[in-house]
């Protein structure tokens, strides 16, 4: 397990806790609860059992030979989080926090969701463990992701459309915090990424550490050496920190986080918080934020709903400043080209989020050449994105749409 950021939850100058006093007791309860659970063999056994028997871990590390040819010939290996139950890495965190909820004696879980991946994973874990579940989702997103709304309801969750602010992910998080402060005695806020006030950034990272832990031993077994680079997409940054954490102590492994460049970082339509934002305080933590000169949050844009968030986890902010990881923005079009290539060359439809990492791998491969080994975290599958992608590529004709 990676090291703890300490009692105050700082990563260098980032992180910490900027939250109402009313939530401090609950945040302390979660921090204490996680510190104990993390070192409790019974808890770990139960979590590992669920990850194996329910999620289907370990997820494979797949050789992507035909896609490699599109990456300057570098050997690309895909960490297949898309094969997890519910279709993405999100389930790793959700199962851990849902078990923690039961351990804390709470009966109700709330969560935010943008694209619906985290909401679906949370509704799934709550169904499995018998917890009441309420999902906050921006009204704009409930329209864009109607199928996932139905899925969450099917699993027994109540989905509340948020009609305030920009009606997207950040507003769903605001609304979840408002619910939490009023219901904190019996409710756990199951935050879906490595952002928010301490202890969320380190706890969620710990729960995704298994991605990198598995990938590191798999790549050693497969190639006999460490990779030259590890690539992941970064919105809030949970899948990226999960795979990075195991490689941070290996200085020879370059770490790349690929942000959502939208229409371009030089436009006002992107979600690249590190490459296009500035340090500030947002939703409980100090980190890079998309903000104007007065500190007001600037709405983000990405073709990928899961990366459409105007900030990033504080540990990424620290890794960026220290230079241990590099962050690069991938525009929508470049991500969609990588999406298309993975479909055609490997028979894998990736999540559009993950397609940003695949596009990044093509850039790294072109730079490092055919001797390089690149591990890409394929964080999710693209079933949820079929409509967006089909529209983008013009695969849906007028008649098809009507049927």
């Amino acid at each position: 397990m990676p090291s703890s950021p300490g009692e105050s939850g700082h990563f260098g100058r980032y992180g910490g806790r900027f939250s109402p006093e009313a939530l401090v007791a609950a945040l302390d309860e979660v921090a204490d609860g996680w510190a104990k659970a993390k070192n409790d063999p019974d808890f770990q056994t139960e979590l590992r059992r669920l990850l194996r028997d329910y999620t289907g871990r370990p997820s494979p590390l797949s050789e992507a030979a035909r896609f490699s040819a599109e990456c300057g010939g570098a050997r690309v290996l895909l960490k297949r989080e898309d094969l997890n139950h519910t279709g993405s890495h999100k389930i790793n965190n959700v199962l851990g926090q849902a078990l923690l909820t039961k351990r804390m004696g709470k009966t109700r879980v709330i969560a935010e969701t943008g694209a619906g991946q985290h909401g679906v994973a949370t509704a799934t874990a709550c169904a499995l463990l018998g917890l009441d579940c309420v999902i906050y989702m921006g009204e704009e997103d409930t329209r864009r992701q109607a199928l996932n709304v139905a899925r969450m309801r099917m699993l027994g969750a109540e989905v509340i459309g948020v009609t305030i602010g920009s009606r997207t992910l950040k507003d769903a998080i605001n609304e979840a915090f408002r619910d939490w402060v009023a219901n904190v005695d019996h409710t756990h806020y199951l935050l879906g990424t490595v952002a928010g006030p301490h202890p969320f950034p380190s706890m969620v990272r710990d729960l995704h550490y298994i991605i990198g832990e598995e990938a590191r031993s798999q790549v050693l077994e497969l190639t006999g050496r460490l990779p030259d680079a590890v690539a992941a997409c970064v919105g809030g940054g949970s899948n990226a920190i999960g795979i990075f954490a195991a490689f941070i102590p290996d200085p020879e492994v370059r770490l790349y986080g690929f942000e959502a460049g939208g229409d371009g970082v030089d436009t006002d339509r992107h979600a690249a918080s590190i490459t296009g934002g500035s340090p500030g305080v947002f939703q409980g933590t100090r980190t890079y934020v998309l903000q104007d000169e007065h500190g007001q949050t600037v709405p983000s844009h990405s073709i990928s709903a899961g990366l459409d968030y105007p900030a990033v986890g504080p540990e990424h902010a620290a890794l960026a400043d220290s230079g241990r990881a590099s962050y690069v923005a991938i525009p929508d079009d470049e991500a969609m080209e990588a999406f298309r290539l993975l479909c055609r060359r490997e028979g894998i439809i990736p999540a559009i989020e993950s397609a940003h990492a695949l596009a990044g791998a093509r850039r790294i491969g072109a730079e490092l050449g055919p001797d390089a080994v690149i591990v890409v975290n394929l964080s999710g599958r693209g079933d949820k994105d079929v409509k967006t992608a089909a529209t983008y590529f013009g695969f849906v004709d007028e008649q098809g749409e009507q049927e």
Partner: protein
Amino acid sequence: MSGERTAPEQATTLQTKLGEAKAAGRAALIGYLPAGFPDVDASIKVIQAMVAGGCDIVEVGLPYSDPTMDGPTIQRAADRALAAGTTPKDVLRVVSATAETGAAALVMSYWNPIDRYGVHRFAADLAEAGGAGVITPDLLPEEAGEWFEATDEAGLDRVFLVAPSSTDRRLRLTTDACRGFVYAASLMGVTGTREQVADTAERLVRRTREATGEDGLPVCVGLGISTGAQAAEVAGYADGVIVGAGFCQRILDAPDLDAGLTAVRGFAEELALGVRSR
């Protein structure tokens, strides 16, 4: 962190106002309005009406895009203020106008706009504008090192919040960090009107007084207070009564600004009567 901080030598207007109310055997009335709601000039008129109706102290809100502690009414008011293009400079102008009414002017702001403005610069400019202090609802004392320095240098009061869930240890930590008064959040929830004053409020005030000791800071109560009767009830145990959403609601409901000003003044008079009938 605490302990060695130097208190400004002169009393701030906030401290004076709270002292006057105490001497008169009543609670102080503290009103809140986001600067720039419904627009910058109109917000000054609304604050003048609040003071004319009996507010001793006004919290001038710095509107922010992501107000996680506010309910729908204040969210809507802040949205209107942002849509009207309100900037921190406008907020300082509203503070100056508030101070000119004779009321004590505070700023209530989420942390990022102050962080972005520059912590020391904000404190200095606010003091220059005639502001007495700042309430920071999402800044915890643990993260406030630079804020302590800046408010000490500028001679500003700084108000942190305590909540029903605060442990005794945290009540001591937070009250030690406060100057001017302690803001006791009456309930576990966001801003907005409520049918009744939460039963958690009185107990929190008592616990807060235990933490501050005999000659401790004034304790003012906010969240969910929106009638004269509720103000009177809270005035029975608190040094100040804080009302926000009720003022915003009257402006939102009014057909035009003049009607809104009349309603705001009448509401302030009702509350002012309340804080005098403890």
